[in-house]
């Protein structure tokens, strides 16, 4: 209807290409308008702020590239924060995706009470805020938390977890794995979309379970896998809350995640300009990684309905 109405209104595109163009823009117009109204302005403002020094209480002062120079050459905490976030993401994302995928596979079957089980697995993602942080402080408590208690049962001396420079970041990764429910749901939705006829056909062609997995499931799920990977990168590099509440970036900056450092600069050190510079550097890093993933996608992502070289 949209396309037809546009035609009637008097916009007379001369070619199919132009009509397609118009339709495209019509469909994405809600986002485009919203972007121009609510997002573009603030984003550009932060870009401008990254070239200034602003304490939030007095007007910003233009300082040119000073923030970026300091970031690259005079700030060891920047590199520490980058290192922490890179480690966290590099280890956390593959684990997270693999775990979510496996659980989704298991829950894709017609098990009894599957709806209940899925809800249970999703539950951790639903608890928010303060309660979660306290829970995990208890779980990781070296003296009486369940993890170290369990380790003691098998005669292993548990580490200090959140009080240990080495173990604090792994502890935060474990906390993030507790929330695989979200990624799991997305995988589930993707698995639901794979027609069973495909499996049947493959089986008839003589494919075993393992082969069916690799030649049917994986390709068909690849768009969702791609999604989880890209989102994983975008979100993981911006992880903040758990480090903020549970470790404050410690001990000795071992869990100083990038956005936590940014937050400190913005709201505790009165350096909003510097924080904006940090933000844009992060955006560039994430964007670069995302573009790389996109560029690699033709090699491993399969879309049934992709507009590739058609029409």
């Amino acid at each position, binding site marked *: 209807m949209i396309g037809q109405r546009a035609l009637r209104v008097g916009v007379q595109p001369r070619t199919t290409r132009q009509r397609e163009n118009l339709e495209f823009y019509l469909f994405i117009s*809600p986002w485009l308008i919203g972007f121009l109204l609510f997002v573009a302005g603030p984003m550009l403002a932060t870009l401008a702020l990254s070239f200034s020094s602003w304490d939030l209480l007095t007007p910003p002062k233009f300082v040119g590239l000073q923030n970026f120079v300091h970031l690259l050459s005079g700030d060891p905490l920047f590199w520490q924060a980058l290192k922490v976030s890179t480690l966290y993401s590099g280890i956390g994302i593959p684990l997270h995706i693999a775990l979510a995928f496996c659980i989704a596979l298991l829950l894709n079957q017609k098990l009894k009470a599957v709806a209940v089980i899925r809800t249970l697995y999703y539950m951790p993602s639903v608890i928010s805020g*303060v309660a979660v942080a306290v829970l995990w402080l208890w779980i990781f408590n070296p003296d009486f938390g369940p993890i170290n208690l369990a380790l003691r049962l098998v005669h292993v001396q548990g580490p200090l977890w959140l009080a240990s420079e080495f173990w604090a970041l792994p502890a935060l990764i474990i906390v993030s794995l507790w929330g695989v429910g979200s990624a799991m749901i997305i995988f589930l939705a993707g698995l639901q979309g794979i027609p069973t006829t495909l499996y049947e056909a493959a089986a008839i062609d003589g494919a075993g379970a393992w082969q069916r997995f690799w030649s049917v499931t994986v390709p068909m799920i690849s768009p969702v896998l791609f999604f989880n990977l890209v989102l994983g990168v975008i979100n993981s590099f911006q992880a903040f809350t758990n480090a903020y509440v549970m470790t404050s970036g410690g001990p000795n900056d071992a869990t100083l995640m990038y956005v936590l450092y940014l937050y400190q600069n913005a709201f505790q050190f009165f350096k909003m300009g510097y*924080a*904006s510079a940090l933000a844009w550097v992060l955006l560039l890093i994430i964007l670069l990684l995302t573009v790389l993933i996109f560029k690699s996608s033709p090699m491993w992502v399969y879309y049934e309905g992709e507009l590739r070289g058609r029409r």
Partner: protein
Amino acid sequence: MLTVGRRASSYQAARMSWLRRASVQRGTSLVIAYLILAAGIILILIPLLWMISTSLKDIGSVFLFPPQIIPDPALWKNYADGWNAQPFGLFLRNTLVITFSSMVGQTFSCALVAFGFARLRGTGSNVLFMLLLSTIMLPIYVTLIPTFILYKYLGWLDTFLPLIVPSFFGGGPFFIFLMRQFFMTIPLELDDAARVDGATTFDIFLKICLPLAAPALAAVAIFAFLGSWNDFLQPLIYLQRTDHFTLAIGLNLFRAESTAVTPWNQLMAVSLLVMIPPLLVFFFAQRYFIQGIVISGIKG
């Protein structure tokens, strides 16, 4: 993909034998699946059980170590006390209004936009898509204040508008990206067939792609609901008066100045109560996660 060139009878026979073999395999794999899932459930439930246990304790024994697993006596009144400690009924109402509105807005608008990106050619669509994604690559803590100032000039501070209106404009890159991926898994032959039958682009969107992407839409609805339900930062910054607060803010207000005087038992109790609606939404949305969509009416 489709059984082109097979003759009906041999296909049927092969199918039956496969199904027979598969049912035995399915038996053992089911048991294994149950075992693994059970182990996972235990791991997931431990923190939750501690939440429940804490919620039933007397404030003095919340942090005794070694901790009591089953509190004795079990103070169910903590739930009522916690709920009444603040105007949670009002917070609930506010949160429901905000969450439902933004869930509806997000689900509908993201599908439209995602269809555009997935199915339609437009100049600069790749660049625009990257722009879309880049908007979630900038940490919210730097865009917070410029956005706050924007809403101040619009006169929307201390209202629900900043929390609802943007949802109707695409509802967020996360959802658009998700729906785009799902739309791209739908075969283009369906579109072609529909066009031959005289469908417009919008018809294709509404009558073909949307129904086929139902599981994804269900997922979006679940996430949109939860995201808005648990959102703490944005309501915190945009809302001023206490009677506009949401549940997430209310929970945070349990945190008094020092940990020793925070009523953890009540906080856990109300946190558990607040968890129920999103879980219900999830539970009921699951019926859309239907197994094996059969694509009918396609000729090989």
